[in-house]
């Protein structure tokens, strides 16, 4: 059986999974919102419970979220959450931590130095490269414009 361009596209569209964008967005909203809410709860615990200063509590909450996410990734639970949460589990800083731990675990069989340590920034590296670059440019522009 032969297809021309249009009928081929029809067949392809038929077998392509239906667009689930709305459902994905709903889950992204719930999961992403919940992770940010957890960050705010951590922050308040550090302020009122441990007497941390307001400006220190933010980084402390980030560290707590990163630690939690690293642990959940190690247990294999974060990836399960990610199947539902989509971007909701990728965009928060927990997703950054997950992108550090995942390759570190995956390449463990190649050794602790050439496997885990070499590949630990395999996915997060681009974020740091472009992030640091953008920050440097922002700093330079600030220097020039005053």
């Amino acid at each position, binding site marked *: 059986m032969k297809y021309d361009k249009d009928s081929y596209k029809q067949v392809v569209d038929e077998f392509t999974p239906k667009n689930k964008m709305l459902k994905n967005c709903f889950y992204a909203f719930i999961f992403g919102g919940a992770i940010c809410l957890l960050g705010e709860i951590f922050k308040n615990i550090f302020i009122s419970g441990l007497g941390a200063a307001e400006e220190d509590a933010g980084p402390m909450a980030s560290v707590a979220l990163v630690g939690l996410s690293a642990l959940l990734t190690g247990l294999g639970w974060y990836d399960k959450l990610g199947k539902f949460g*989509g971007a909701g589990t990728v965009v928060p800083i927990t997703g950054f931590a997950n992108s550090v731990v995942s390759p570190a675990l995956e390449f463990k069989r190649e050794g602790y130095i050439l496997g885990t340590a070499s590949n630990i920034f395999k996915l997060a590296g681009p974020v740091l490269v472009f992030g640091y670059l953008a920050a440097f440019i922002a700093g330079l522009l600030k220097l020039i414009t005053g």
Partner: protein
Amino acid sequence: MNYIMSFVVGGIICVIGQIIIDTFKKNNAYLLVLMVVTGAALGYFGIYDKLVEIGYSGATVPLLGFGNTLAKGAMEEAASKGFMGALSGGVIKTAPGVAAALMFGYIVAVVFNPKSNK
């Protein structure tokens, strides 16, 4: 109120991310790079601070906030220390999160073994 706004603003930022993923169907790394650079740009123009005032952790926990912290750190240090400040300011401000990811990541990788994808 902080809790509700954190949830809503954080949720909306993640929905924007989900729309980008579903529309362009690229590797997540593209999304993360886009988020960090956008956050740095918004931070440079002082726009992101307004979002942080509204959304609290909802604005600081997503990677946009990471970009914002990077840019603002570099700008603050540049103002006081010149070129060397521009070079190191962003890195210093974001060091806790990055270092934590590195340390915890390595420890977890040593302690746990990879799970097979079921």
